[in-house]
């Protein structure tokens, strides 16, 4: 809502400047989004009359005009060609300042001295002013513009406008009179508003015109004022200027009166050319296949959910949204039917959404129009029609259903202080209601019965009035206290604690946390997540963000690709987040939200003068996973992938499914050759694990074991085995063969190449033997080692590499 300070001051005498008033309103709960001065910076531009136009003798594209500015005649050279003799035009003379700070000086154009310039609306930064032929040239003002007057005064541009950002609970402030009331409440001044804004209703003779409401649940009221002897002409300048300040373009006296009254009273109005209506005016839902051409010239298909106004021939307006072109007021209109009605906000809202059509009227209906003022507003319309000599109000008719009754709310003073934590006195509270201009009486001790005026539909319960009290006195008066309720101890749940621990472990292992959108492109999600399993949004922001992810990988891959394209090629990234798995599609109940951990690694450690680069390869990532598994108290098992799903996604030789206590936890692998390049990546390793499963098996308890006092004996053993035998299998077997005293087996070297037969590999193992009771002897350890060697020689065709 744009509020002109000049207009506001017609109701209420305020000494504050616009900025100060904005501060008062904002602190009072009416947020002022912006404050604007209408004159964008020009000074001393006067209205002149074109007395003479001649072509420039030396330049075809220039004209020489003699213009009377009231005090003198000046010669001006212009490149524009749209002005005619007698036109009223804005003149900038030497010394005039234009928006942006440019100062006008006399200038010579091909031998002719121009004593200033003629201005266009663009140069003056004003809109919606002047005759139609002003477009693209000099601004041509109405022919009655007084010569010699300052343009600023003529257009009323010496005005400030407050832009109110209204919350949905204050639609009353979409009316100037109620803004004045609000300002009055906050400043403690009583505004002067018309009798119409106090709910007075006029009386006129009953019209012959019939009005019916077929859907009383959607329309509480339909009032029509009939006007004869209409004379269509421009509205007076004062009205045009006020409309422009409010952001409404002046059209003609009739349309301007409907807009002016809407801005003043908040009641949307519509003017029909009555001679184009036939029979009964009816409010009803549209029928299947009905249509209407609206004022903007668009043909609109209607459906049975759309409330329309009809005459005997069909729809003539979409209720509360826009009128029809056929019954539009034109230059030749002689009789008018002014509609002042009430339509249900939710119905208007649905219709305006569906049609993609929003107007000042629909905006007000959606937010809530005061049904009690429908006829009062017509009183104001009639008053202005007479004042402007635009027409003669002759008769009136109305259909009205049950209007909401005025309500009274009891306010219990101790409760006010109990809820707010304040110590307001009864007098202070009474003063608030006085400022609000609400009537009240003491019902019983400490209880005030407050009458709510019809324009404050937002006030329904005691708490609403408590807020009124708090905001009018000022939220600054609410003290700062500490809750004296029950004492509690805050603690993370084990699952929350585990998530934090896991995140810390991954960060500690060098991985960077990323955060990606929960919605992704359907086709990509199907590749990495569940095929056909993603939940689609009805109204996605973009098609690429249309499906709720079933895997974290699409997001991670995109982030990795973006980084790679920016030459951040060495990556270690992870994300912890939910994926969304429907139980059935289309969705009938909420889907499962499963927390996942996924990561991507690429490149290697940064090159360094002191240490060799460590590649972020399969084993690097496996190492990280091993570390977090250890910290989580779980052991992971890696099995070669057998799942078809990974075909051509993961390198078959460099990927694994990961199991935890025989349950599928997730996978790890290098992206399939060439697919990486297609994705804009460089041989990355990816993984995705199920967080919930990890948590289910985790044990964060630490039970410390003491260490043996007796020294350990360490032995190394190198064997050559066929290369397809997994190292882990040999390691496990060695552990079994080594007996109780073998405490640890590690693989410390894997070698293929010179001196090793083709198709074989050499594994070097180190074994640590230890007893808790005695110092071991070399001989017994040698025996264990021989057993191991014999065992694996037999089992794996291993050969001892001496």
């Amino acid at each position: 809502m744009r509020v002109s300070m000049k207009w506001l001051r017609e109701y209420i005498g305020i000494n504050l400047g616009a900025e100060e008033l904005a501060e008062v309103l904002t602190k009072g709960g009416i947020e002022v989004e912006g404050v604007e001065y209408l004159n964008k910076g020009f000074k001393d531009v006067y209205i002149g009359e074109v007395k003479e136009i001649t072509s420039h003798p030396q330049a075809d594209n220039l004209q020489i005009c003699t213009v009377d500015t009231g005090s003198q005649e000046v010669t001006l050279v212009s490149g524009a060609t749209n002005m005619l003799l007698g036109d009223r035009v804005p003149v900038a003379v030497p010394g005039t300042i234009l928006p942006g700070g440019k100062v006008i000086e006399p200038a010579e154009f091909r031998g002719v001295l121009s004593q200033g310039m003629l201005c266009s609306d663009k140069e003056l930064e004003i809109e919606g002013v002047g005759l139609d032929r002003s477009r693209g040239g000099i601004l041509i003002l109405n022919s009655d513009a007084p010569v010699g007057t300052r343009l600023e005064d003529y257009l009323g541009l010496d005005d400030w406008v407050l832009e109110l950002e209204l919350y949905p609970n204050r639609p009353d402030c979409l009316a100037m009179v109620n803004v004045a009331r609000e300002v009055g409440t906050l400043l403690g001044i009583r505004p002067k508003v018309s009798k119409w804004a106090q709910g007075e209703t006029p009386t006129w003779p009953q019209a012959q015109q019939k009005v019916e409401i077929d859907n009383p649940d959607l329309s509480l009221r339909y009032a029509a004022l009939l006007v004869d002897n209409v004379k269509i002409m421009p509205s007076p300048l004062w009205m045009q200027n006020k409309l422009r300040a409010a952001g409404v373009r002046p059209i003609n006296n009739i349309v301007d009166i409907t807009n002016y009254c809407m801005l003043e009273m908040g009641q949307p109005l519509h003017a029909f050319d009555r001679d184009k209506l036939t029979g009964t005016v009816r409010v009803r839902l549209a029928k299947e296949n009905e249509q209407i051409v609206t004022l903007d010239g668009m043909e609109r298909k209607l459906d049975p959910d759309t409330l329309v106004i009809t005459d005997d021939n069909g729809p003539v307006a979409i209720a509360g949204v826009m009128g029809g072109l056929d019954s539009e007021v034109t230059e030749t209109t002689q009789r008018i039917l002014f509609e002042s009605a009430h339509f249900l906000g939710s119905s208007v809202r649905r219709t305006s959404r569906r049609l993609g059509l929003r107007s000042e009227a629909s905006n007000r209906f959606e937010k809530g129009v005061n049904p009690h003022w429908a006829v009062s507003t017509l009183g104001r319309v009639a008053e202005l029609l007479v004042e402007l000599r635009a027409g003669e109000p002759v008769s009136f008719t109305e259909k009205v259903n049950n209007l909401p009754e005025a309500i009274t709310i009891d306010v219990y003073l101790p409760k006010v202080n109990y809820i707010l934590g304040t110590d307001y006195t009864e007098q202070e509270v009474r003063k608030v209601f006085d400022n609000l201009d609400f009537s009240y009486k003491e019902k019983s001790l400490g209880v005030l019965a407050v009458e709510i005026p019809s324009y404050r539909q937002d006030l329904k319960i005691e708490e609403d009035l408590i807020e009124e009290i708090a905001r009018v006195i000022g939220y600054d008066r609410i003290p700062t206290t500490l809750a004296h309720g029950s004492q509690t101890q805050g603690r993370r749940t084990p699952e929350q604690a585990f998530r934090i621990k896991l995140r810390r472990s991954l960060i500690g292992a060098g991985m960077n946390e990323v955060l990606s959108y929960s919605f992704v492109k359907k086709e990509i999600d199907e590749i990495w997540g569940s095929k056909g399993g993603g939940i689609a949004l009805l109204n996605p922001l973009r098609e690429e963000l249309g499906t709720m992810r079933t895997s974290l990988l699409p997001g991670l891959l995109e982030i990795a690709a973006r980084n790679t394209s920016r030459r951040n090629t060495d990556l270690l990234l992870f994300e912890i987040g939910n994926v969304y798995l429907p139980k059935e599609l289309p969705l009938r109940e909420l889907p499962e939200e499963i927390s996942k951990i996924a990561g991507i690694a690429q490149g290697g450690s940064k090159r360094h003068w002191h240490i060799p680069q460590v590649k972020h390869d399969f084993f690097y990532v496996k190492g990280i996973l091993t570390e977090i598994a250890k910290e989580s108290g779980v052991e992971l098992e890696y099995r070669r992938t057998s799942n078809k799903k990974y075909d051509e996604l993961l390198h078959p030789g460099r990927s694994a499914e990961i199991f935890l206590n025989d349950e599928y936890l997730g996978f790890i692998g290098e992206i399939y050759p060439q697919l990486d390049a297609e994705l804009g990546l460089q041989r990355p390793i990816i993984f995705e694990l199920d967080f919930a499963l990890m948590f289910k098996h985790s044990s964060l308890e630490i039970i410390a074991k003491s260490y043996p006092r007796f020294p350990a004996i360490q032995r190394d053993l190198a064997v050559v085995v066929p290369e397809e035998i997994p190292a882990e299998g040999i390691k496990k077997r060695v552990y079994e063969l080594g007996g109780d005293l073998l405490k640890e087996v590690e693989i410390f070297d894997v070698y293929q190449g010179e001196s090793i037969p083709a198709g074989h590999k050499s594994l070097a193992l180190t074994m640590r033997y230890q007893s808790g009771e005695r110092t071991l002897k070399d001989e017994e350890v040698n025996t264990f080692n021989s057993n191991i060697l014999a065992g694996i020689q037999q089992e794996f065709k291993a050969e001892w590499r001496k």
Partner: protein
Amino acid sequence: MREEIPKIKEETLSELQKVSSIEELQELKVRVMGKKGSLTSLLKQMGSLKPEERPQMGQIINDVRNDLEEAWEEKKIILEKEALNRRLDQERIDISLPGTPFPRGHQHPLSKVIEEIEDIFLGMGFMIAEGPEIETDYYNFEALNLPKDHPARDMQDTFFITEDILLRTQTSPVQVRTMEKIAPQLPVKIIAPGKVFRNDDDATHSPMFHQVEGLLVDKGVRMSDLKGLLLYFSRQMFGESREIRLRPSFFPFTEPSAEVDVSCMLCGGNGCRICKYTGWIEILGSGMVHPRVLEMGGYNPKEVTGFAFGIGVERIAMLKYGIEDMRLLFDNDLRFLEQF
């Protein structure tokens, strides 16, 4: 023989001067005092002396021997010191070269801020509650006093999945879910961090962002308690000298409602670009839980009251880390992430 002794001593001492390493020193010692050393051989010749001369001669040789030993020891210390100094010199490194990098990752700024907010409220006795990101219309709107077609629904552009299932536009549904779970026990004292979604995308809006909801329901909870709690939170988050101010606002599920501003952490309230020269920065919305919402959560609004608040995590992160464009938070460029 008597003449040879001083000669040996002198020669030895002068050779000792020239010795430049422990090895040479050892060699010299062997040459003089070893089994076949010059001084040792003199001792061996003692037998050819007259018995009365022997003690005297023995004494002289011993004295020389002691003198030489002493000189050797001195020299040895010097040489060892020299050797050590040489070694120290050789082992000198360019301390200006960079240290060996220790691979350490970084937490995303948003998860960092959420964790920080959690820790502040955990310290004040709040529990952390969670709720689904895909929600029903009932929990996201209706149970929060926002019936269908309520104009306030326009404040939030909603992503829909079906007519009744949507992406939650706020963390507030967790309020109702938690009350339903806990009622009629008291107090309800939770914060609920999480992702929320709105159909909006520009420099100041992201279609997915994060909120931390807060809810305290108990007997005798006052709006002044809300103010006290939020003042404490703001000081923990932004520094001890911060002040807060409440402005009337509107949320369908609170009454009275308040927008909360914190005094600008950059200019201290004097006015700067960040606070748009007002000295105040809006950080969260809050209010007293609407009686209808308490009812729907299973509490009697005549017996208990409560307050609720919703913190915008992105906003806090941007203020805290001086991030000017919200899109950086979801771009995930490594150069950005590595600063946290």
